[in-house]
């Protein structure tokens, strides 16, 4: 142990002797590790936030949309798909009445809400929903009540406010029972939703919900780009695959998809969405890994080169060490340890810069939790040790094999 400490100390001393050269050598390794760690950190932050958002939905919820929720291309394959109409959604609900609840929503953006002299920004989602939407997605109100089956049946002009909207308009006052105006129409406030937090950096509390029948039939939000999203609650997680099959079958009937044709809608579970993401993410990971490893390989060859120069420069020193009793193995270890230490310092520098860089880069795009890819940090350390040993071996071997007499008389 004390021998190893002595070796490490001596290696550090040797590195300090030519600081500029050591810096550049360390730098090449650091670039490789930086690439690995920064990529992985960025991916991990992305992964974390995706998982958070998706699992906030509840694991038993199956989404039915006319477009997939994750798309990595604009692909023509979706161009001809038609939005899901309220009629189709109602048909699906009808098909599963008594077995599965079907939540529905259809939304538009950029509404301001007015209460006498107070007005919110034009930043609120205006969402038509049905009664089951609340129970399937586990939404609840802090005051008042949620939208009822009757509200939907009779297309009542009632709204549930998001917490941000209620706070702007009513502050500490009770909002329930008051009348607010949206686009010059009057709505009775029946409830204020509990907060849904701010995942991915955006408040989910800027919305107004109203019966979907009023939204579609009275206000006329329908047509080309206005779809109804459905959230079907499977009775249990085990039954999800079965439920997906049933929903798919029912939707094909409802949307008149001919046998042999592809579905013109998507039935997604948490798992299927996460799967799509992981496919994309593991591709990204591969790219990062390959780039990082190539950089490390190049750095390794650089290290071999430098070590050969160092061994040549220190031939006399090797001779002296041998004269006072260093064995070949001891000299071999000395230079191997030196190579590994260069690599480890490089790894440390790469990790120390890569983690903040990955986090910062992702933070500029979306607000994410800080991530530290522990496995890759450990992995980088191991890879750098292997690189140090692999590329340090030949120079160290040359040093160890030097004949003491020749080394001592070397100029």
């Amino acid at each position, binding site marked *: 142990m004390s021998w190893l400490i002595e070796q490490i100390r001596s290696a550090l001393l040797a590195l300090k002797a030519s600081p500029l050269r050591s810096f550049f050598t360390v730098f090449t390794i650091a670039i490789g590790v930086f690439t690995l760690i920064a990529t992985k950190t960025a991916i991990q932050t992305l992964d974390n936030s995706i998982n958070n958002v998706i699992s906030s939905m509840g694991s038993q919820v199956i989404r039915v949309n006319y477009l997939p929720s994750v798309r990595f291309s604009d692909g023509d394959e979706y161009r001809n798909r038609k939005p899901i109409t309220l009629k189709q959604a109602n048909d699906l609900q009808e098909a599963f009445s008594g077995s599965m609840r079907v939540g529905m929503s259809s939304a538009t953006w950029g509404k301001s809400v007015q209460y006498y002299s107070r007005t919110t920004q034009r930043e609120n989602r205006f969402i038509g929903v049905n009664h089951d939407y609340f129970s399937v997605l586990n939404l609840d109100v802090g005051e008042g009540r949620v939208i009822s089956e009757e509200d939907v049946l009779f297309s009542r002009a009632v709204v549930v406010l998001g917490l941000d909207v209620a706070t702007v308009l009513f502050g500490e006052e009770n909002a329930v029972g008051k009348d607010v105006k949206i686009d010059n129409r009057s709505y009775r406030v029946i409830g204020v939703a509990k907060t849904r937090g701010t995942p991915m950096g955006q408040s989910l509390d800027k919305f107004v919900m109203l019966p979907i029948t009023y939204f579609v039939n009275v206000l006329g939000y329908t047509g080309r780009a206005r779809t109804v999203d459905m959230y079907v609650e499977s009775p249990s997680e085990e039954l999800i695959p079965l439920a997906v099959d049933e929903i798919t079958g029912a939707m094909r009937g409802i949307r008149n998809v001919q046998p042999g044709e592809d579905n013109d809608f998507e039935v997604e579970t948490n798992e299927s969405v996460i799967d799509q993401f992981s496919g994309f993410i593991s591709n990204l990971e591969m790219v990062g890994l390959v780039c990082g490893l190539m950089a490390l390989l190049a750095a390794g060859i650089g290290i071999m080169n430098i070590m050969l120069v160092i061994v040549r420069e220190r031939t006399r020193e090797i001779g002296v060490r041998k004269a006072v009793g260093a064995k070949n193995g001891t000299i071999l270890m000395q230079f191997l340890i030196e190579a590994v230490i260069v690599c480890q310092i490089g790894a440390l520098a790469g990790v120390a810069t890569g983690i903040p860089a990955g986090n910062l880069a992702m933070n500029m795009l979306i607000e994410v939790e800080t991530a530290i890819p522990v496995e890759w940090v450990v992995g980088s350390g191991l890879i750098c040790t292997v690189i140090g040993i692999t590329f340090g071996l030949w120079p160290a071997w040359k040093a160890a094999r030097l004949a003491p*007499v020749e080394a001592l008389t070397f100029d």
Partner: protein
Amino acid sequence: MSAVISINEVGKRYIMGTQKVYALRTVTLDIEENEYVAIMGPSGSGKSTLMNLIGCLDTPTKGEYLFKGESVGKMNDNQLAEIRNREIGFVFQTFNLLPRYSSLKNVELPLVYSGVPGSERQRRAQEALDHVGLGDRVHHKPNELSGGQRQRVAIARALVTKPSIILADEPTGNLDTKTGYEIMALFAELHRGGNTIILVTHEPDIAEYAHRIIRLRDGRIESDEVNANPRQPEAELAAQ
């Protein structure tokens, strides 16, 4: 007294290309414990080769070399390293100190390779430096020391393992006359203290300090004489 070094018809031959070069033809000699021997000769006489053989830095191509009764010719690299570490202290013309290390660390080096633990190592290195009169220069690096001081550090390094022989190759070659006297005085003192000293030099007046002088010429021993009246460096120093 027993022979520490017993060299019997030893020779060293190098092959350079197709030519055989005899660096040492045939040498036979014994060196007893606590002898003070000078090996003399002009350059090319084979004295460096003989020193390398005696110091176990190299192995002979013929003959037999017994170090304390053990045949050096049959030893592998590691065994030779151990002999050098435990039994031989080298003092070189160019000092050969490690430039990045303090005096103390330089002197500790042989002990590192013999596996002496850190605190013990430091104590013994300090002791050796005290012995050569550099107890107050332990943290200085070689470039902060004078030539004479550097050679003293090198001698302390040679002494620190309490070796059977001290092998000095032109130890005053890079020093001025007065400093040379001081170093020779140190060797005289070590000799009186019981050390075996082998001095390799081409300067007759340096060889005169030794009690036995071996002259080499063309790879053979030309003469091997007792020096009945060795020079006394302390007296010369005092006279200056």
